[in-house]
C-alpha cells in the first residue's frame, strides 16, 4: 500500500500518458501503472486512479452469455441471455479497501455516511469503531458500507459502480463455466476467500489468484454492490449491459459471494449450491441501506458512453 503511494506521487506529476518509450492513453485522473501495456484504442491496460489509489484493469468490449438456464441454479439468474458490452471500461483490480475508503473520509469530512444506511440500526463502518471483528487495516476490503455509501464514494472519486452485466462480464473473463476459473470447486480456495477457509473474516485484497483478466476476489472475500436496482430474473434485461432500473424496487444487487459463503469443512453441501451462492452468475440482494460485515464494493471507470 505504501509503495503505491510513492508511485502515485511520481505519476501525478506526469498526468498519465507515458510509460517508458511507449505512449499510453489513460483516462483523466489516472496514470498508467508501471507494468501497463497498450490495450484497446491505445489505452493502458492498467492504470492507477490517482484520487483513490485504486488500480484499474481495462476490460475490453465483447459479447457474453449472462445468467444461466441451469435448473439447479437459483431462479433469479435465468434466463441465460446474450449481452454485448460495446464499450471498454476500467474495473478495479480489487475490491475497494479500507485504506482507499479512508481517503474519501478524509477528503469529505462532512459526509454523513450514517444517513445512508438503515435508519433503525447502527451499521456504518462498524469495523472502524471497534464494533466488528472485521479488520480495519488498510489492505482489507471495506465493509459495513451500504449502497449509498458506495455511490457517495464513487461520486467523490469520479468513478462508478458496475452494472450487473459489467460485473458478470468482467467476472467471467471470457469463461462460460460456473466460476471464472472453471467448474471445479476444488480450485475455489486458490481464487477465493470463502467460508471456513476464510475463518469467517475478510482478508487482504489480492491475496488469491486473479481471474484471466487480472481481477482479484471476484469470488469471495466480500459481496460487491452493483449499480442496478434489483430486478428478479432477466426476462426484461437489456442486451447492452446497461444498468437496470425499476422505480418500485426496494433492494440492490450484490455479486460474487463472500467469506461467509462457500464449501465448509464437512463438504456436505452439493457443489451446485456454492456456484449458485458465489459463482459467476450468483446474485444476492438486500435493501441499499443494509450495510453488513461481508458487503463491500468494486468500482469501474467507463471510457465513454456508459451511463451507470
Amino acid at each position, binding site marked *: 500500500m505504501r509503495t503505491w503511494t510513492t508511485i502515485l506521487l511520481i505519476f501525478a506529476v506526469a498526468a498519465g500518458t507515458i510509460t517508458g518509450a511507449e505512449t499510453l492513453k489513460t483516462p483523466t485522473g489516472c496514470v498508467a501503472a508501471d507494468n501497463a501495456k497498450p490495450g484497446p484504442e491505445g489505452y493502458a491496460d492498467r492504470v492507477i486512479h490517482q484520487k483513490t489509489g485504486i488500480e484499474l484493469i481495462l476490460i475490453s468490449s465483447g459479447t457474453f452469455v449472462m445468467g444461466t438456464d441451469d435448473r439447479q441454479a437459483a431462479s433469479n439468474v435465468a434466463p441465460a441471455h446474450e449481452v454485448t458490452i460495446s464499450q471498454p471500461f476500467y474495473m478495479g483490480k480489487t475490491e475497494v479497501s479500507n485504506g482507499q475508503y479512508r481517503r474519501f473520509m478524509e477528503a469529505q469530512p462532512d459526509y454523513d455516511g450514517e444517513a445512508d444506511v438503515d435508519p*433503525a440500526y447502527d*451499521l456504518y463502518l462498524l469495523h472502524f469503531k471497534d464494533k466488528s471483528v*472485521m479488520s480495519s487495516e488498510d489492505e482489507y476490503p471495506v465493509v459495513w458500507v451500504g449502497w449509498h455509501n458506495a455511490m457517495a464514494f464513487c461520486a467523490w472519486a469520479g468513478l462508478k459502480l458496475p452494472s450487473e452485466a459489467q460485473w458478470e462480464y468482467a467476472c467471467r473473463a471470457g469463461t462460460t463455466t460456473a466460476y471464472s476459473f472453471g467448474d471445479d470447486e476444488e480450485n475455489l480456495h486458490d481464487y477465493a476467500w470463502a467460508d471456513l477457509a476464510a475463518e*469467517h473474516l475478510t482478508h487482504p485484497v489480492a491475496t488469491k489468484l486473479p481471474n484471466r483478466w487480472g481481477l482479484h476476489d471476484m469470488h469471495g472475500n466480500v459481496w460487491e454492490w452493483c449499480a442496478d436496482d434489483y430486478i*428478479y430474473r432477466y426476462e426484461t434485461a437489456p442486451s447492452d449491459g446497461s444498468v437496470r432500473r425499476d422505480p418500485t424496487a*426496494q433492494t440492490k444487487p450484490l455479486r460474487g459471494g463472500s467469506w461467509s459463503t462457500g464449501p465448509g469443512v464437512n463438504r*456436505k453441501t452439493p457443489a451446485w*449450491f456454492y456456484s449458485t451462492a458465489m459463482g459467476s452468475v450468483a446474485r444476492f440482494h438486500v*435493501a441499499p441501506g443494509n450495510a453488513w460485515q461481508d458487503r463491500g464494493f468494486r468500482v469501474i471507470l467507463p471510457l465513454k458512453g456508459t451511463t451507470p
Partner: protein
Amino acid sequence: MRNTITALLIICCVTAAPPALAVEADGATLANDEVAYHWAPAQQGGGLIGIEDRGQPAGLLAPTTPAAAWWQVKLKDGRTIANTDLPCQVDSQAETLTFTWTGDIRVTVVARLGADERLLKARIRVDTVTEGAGLRDVVFPVIDGIRPLAENAADDRVLFAFRTGFTRPSPLVTGEPLKMKYCIEYNMQLAALLGGGRGLYFGDHDPTAAWKDFSWTPDADTQTLSYAVSHPVLDWGGPEPVTHYESPGDCVLGPFQGDWYDAARIYRRWAVTAPWCAKGPMVQRDDYPKWFLNIDYWAMGHMGDYLEQQREFIKRDLFDFPITVTHDYGHFNGWTIHDAGPEYFPPKPGSVNYQKVVSELRDRGARVLPYVMGWMWNGASEDFRLRGAKEKGAMLGEDGESVLWAELEPSEENIAMCPASKIWRDKLTDVTVEFIQHYRTGGIYFDYFSTHMADCFNPTHGHALGGGDYWARGVHDLFQQVWDGARKADPEAMLCAEDLAEFCIDVLDAAYVGITADAPVWQAVYHDYTQVFGGMHWMEQGQIPLSRQWLYGRISQIPGTLGFPDAKPETMEWYRDLLRCTHEFARPYLGYGEMLRPPEISGDIPMLTMEAADGPFKAPAVEGTAWRTPDGSVGIFFINYEDQARQFTWKTDLGEIAGLDAAKRLQITEWTADNGAKPLKQTEGGIVGDTVEIPPHGMIALKFERIP
C-alpha cells in the same frame, strides 16, 4: 399358578371390589375381574411373566424363561445389572405389590392395580449402595415375550407417536427393532401394539417430560416382541456420581379393546392433567390470541424477495378470508434461511420497507410471522463473536469441549445453542421482541427449537449434565421467557415452533405436525389444547392432501401468498368451499374442538394409497371425523377424496363419544356451500347415522346440538 389365580378371582368376584393380591412361592399376582398380572417367583428375579385379559383366551405374554425381565440398570462404569441378578423380596399392601432387590444397587418397584382398572401402574426407585457407583440409565419396564395380537401376526401394527402419529408394521413382521427417542422425534410418551381389534398399551406418564428411549425388539425364534423404555438419569454426565433415581410418573401398561384412537384416549386422560395442559383448552384461555384461534389459513411467503407479491396479496384480499398468517421466509438479511440465524436486522428489504408492508398486511387482517432459527446461532456472525456466545451458550458434547455443529445445509457455521443458557434465551427474546414491537409481526415461527434435542455438557451453564428433564425444562423455560417478552410487546402475539413438543403446549400457540397419516394420535390427545399446522400442500399434489388437512383439523396451509394461481377454476372453488366451511361453521370443531372417535363408515368404499412424510399408507376413499366443543355440541365431517360420487352409511354413538345419549333431543344443522348453515332436522341422541351420497370431492358438514 393358574389355580391360585382362579381361586383369587373367585374371592374377588364375591367381594367385588379390591383387586386380588397374592404373593406365593410361585410368584406374585395382581388381578381383578378384567385383568391379571403375574410376576415370576422372587428367587427368579420377580420379572413380569403374565398379562391376562379375562375376555381373551390366551395370555398376552409368553415368557421364554422363568427368569423374566422387568428392569435393567446401567451404571456409569459400564456394568449392567438386571432384576434377575439380585435377590428379590415381594411385599403386598392394599392394591400394591412392592418388589425390592438389594445388591450393589437397591431397586424398588411399586406396582398398583385399581379394582376397576385394566391398566397396571408401576414406578421404580433405584439407589446405589456401593460407594462411588453412579447411575447412567434406568431401563424400566423391560417386558419380554409379548405375543402377537392379531390372528395373523402380520396384521399387527405398532403405534408410533411421531408427527401426528401413524402405525407401522410390527417389528416381528419387519424383523427390525424399532426405536423411538422422546422427545427428539417421538413427541408423546406412549406406545401400543395393535391387532385384532385390541391393543396392549404402554405409557410413560411422566410430567417432567424427561427424555427416554422407547424400543420394540423382535425375537424371531419365539415370535414375540420385547418392549423397553430407557431413562438416562439426570446429571449422569456430571462430576459427581448419580446415586438415586425414581420414576417421575407412572409407567402404565395393560390390555385394551379398540384401536389407535383408544390408545390415544388412555394417554389423553393423563396428558390433560400434565403441567403443560394446566392452562386448559385453548378456547378457555384468556392468554390465547383470539385472532389466531379464528385463523382461516396460513400462507407461506417470502416477503423480502417478493414484496410486490405481498402488495398484490393485499390488493386481492386472498380468498376473501380476513384472518390469515403470512409465514415469512424472506426477511433474512443474510444469504440463506439457515445460516443467517438469528441475525435478521435490518430485514432484507430494509427496516422501513419491512415495517410498512407488515403493517399494511396487519391492517388487512393478515399477520406476518417471521421465521427465526431457534436452536442455532451462526458462529460467524458479529454478535456471536463479539458477545463470546461460544463460551457462554454453545452446547458442548460429552467430552465437555467440542462444539455441536449442526449438520445443516448450506452452512456448517451453525452452532447449536443451549436452551438453558442466559445468552441464548436473551438473544431469542431480543429478536422476538424486536420483530413484534418494531415491525408489528403477529408473532414468531421458531425453527429447530423444541424437539431437536441434544444434551449439553457445558459445566458453566449451571444445568445438569445429561439425561433427565434438562432439555425439556430448558426449552420450556426458554420459551417461557420468550413468551413473556412477546406478550409484553403485544398481548396478542403468537408463538409457534417446529416440531411437536407436548411439554411446551402452555408456552406455544401452535404446533407443527406435518402431514396427517393413518393414526392422528396428536389430534386425538391435544387438538383442543393447541392448534396444529404444517404439512403444506400444493395443488399439483391433488386434492387429497388438502382434504385430509382440513378433515383432520389442521390449519390449512398453502405455498405462496397468492393461493394456487395455476389451479383450475373449479378446483379453486372447491378449495374456497373448504375454507368457507371452516370460516362459517367448522372452526369450533376442526380448529379447536376435542377429537372424538371417528364415525364408522360402511359401504362400497375402496381403500386408497396416500402419501405422508413417513411413507405411504392406506385410507378409505371416504373418511369422517368427529369433534366436540366446550358447549357440548358435536361436529361430524366427511370427505370424499375421489372424483366419483359414493354412497355410504355412517354411524356413531353420540352417547358414548359425547354424552349425548338417547334421552337427549338434538338439533342437526348442516352446512353446504350453496346454503351455508341450515337446520336439517331434530333427532334423539345416542346412536345416530345415515346412508348418504357424497358427490365427487364432496364434503358433508353436520352439527349436533342439544335442544334445551
